[in-house]
């Protein structure tokens, strides 16, 4: 991949990558970091990565960066996150479906949230998601199913309250 193709990748994929990271992490600075790191790695590996594979490479790299982030964050913020989630659950009770869904998404396990975001936002196939997350197709399907079940239950319970 040459510099011009790399710049085209920036045009084509940076927004999607940022959305993916932001929806997953809920932290603009970290999402920013992850996008920059992913593109930096793509630039370093530009000789080995085809232009056609760049999107997949970027999302895979971003996913790995996020896994690192979660590992780091888990050590320090587990307690505060619980408090935050409880507070935000209460706060979005009377907002629209989108807000409820966003909040429910945040409550999913990381891998489930990742596969759902890749599937819904980016329109990836099970196979492509498997390539990014190192899972096979069946595992991806099961994770997506479980994630939707969880989301469905949260939405259902909130609708029942309302």
């Amino acid at each position: 991949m040459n510099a011009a193709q790399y710049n085209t990748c920036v045009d084509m994929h940076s927004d999607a990558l940022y959305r993916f990271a932001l929806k997953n992490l809920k932290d603009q600075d970290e999402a920013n970091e992850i996008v920059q790191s992913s593109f930096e790695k793509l630039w370093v590996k530009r000789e080995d990565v085809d232009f056609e594979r760049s999107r997949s490479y970027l999302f895979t790299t971003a996913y790995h960066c996020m896994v690192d982030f979660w590992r780091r964050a888990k050590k320090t913020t587990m307690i505060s996150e619980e408090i935050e989630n409880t507070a935000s659950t209460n706060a979005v009770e009377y907002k629209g479906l989108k807000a409820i869904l966003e909040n429910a998404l945040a409550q999913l396990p990381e891998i489930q949230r990742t596969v759902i975001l890749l599937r819904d936002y980016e329109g990836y196939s099970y196979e492509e998601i498997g390539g990014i997350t190192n899972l096979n197709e069946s595992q991806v399907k099961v994770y997506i199913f479980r994630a939707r079940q969880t989301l469905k239950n949260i939405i259902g319970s909130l609708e029942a309250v309302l």
Partner: protein
Amino acid sequence: MKKITEEQQMRIFDLLEGNLSEKEKATLVNEIAANEAMQYEYGLMAKTYLNKVDDAITFPNKAVLYKNTGLLVAWNPMKRYAAAAAAILLFGFGGWYFSKQNPTLGDNLAKSTENAAPVEANDSNTEAKEGIKEQQVIKNSQSAKFGSVETGSSNGDAQLRDTSRKTQAVQRPENFQKETEPTPVMQVANVTSNVVVHNDTVIVYQTDNGPVSHTKKRSLSYKLFNNSKAMLANLQLPQVQFKTEPKANRAIPKVKMQIRTYNTDVIATLID
């Protein structure tokens, strides 16, 4: 309402995911139409799908990611620093060689500045200006001491100037140090291009134009710190710390310091 089985849930999921054939799809749609619980399940499950594209969210730092498609792409920071150092050495050597070849240049310069208007004490920033100002102050003090020596021969002038250089430590007025010492803040600015001086505030900017990862920022910060240690050692600045901006604005790591002078010492304070 009757509960539906997990197998039915999975089929509804497959329907929404687009995993069913046309035949399977038609069968399931009929089944759902006849079953209230499945209708409810289908409605709820359909709500779990996020909008495909949320265009409102865009990456704000796209400009940082772009790469120059020209020759500069190959120029990593180390090569640029090396080129800058080579250029400085070349100019330095050129200047030295030129002054060796033209030994009277300094005298001519001093002569040309004799009648010039006095330079404002707080106006001069560059070393050249400081040099001229220093010569002028020395010259003025000599003029006061020896009277109208300006009318003498050129040899006499040169001799007098030589004498004034040799004895300038003795001839300097008491406030000479304060008037002619180059402002340390400006020295900082001359030492590295990463440093910009603005209203007594030294800002160290990151000049690398590539995308910056968290790790790279850390190493950059470390590099800045180390470079600055050498830089500050020359100026004898005490205890200066470097750190990146607070989390919200840390796309470009920078450091702000308040620089104050106290007699001949310089005190640098980090601004948060």
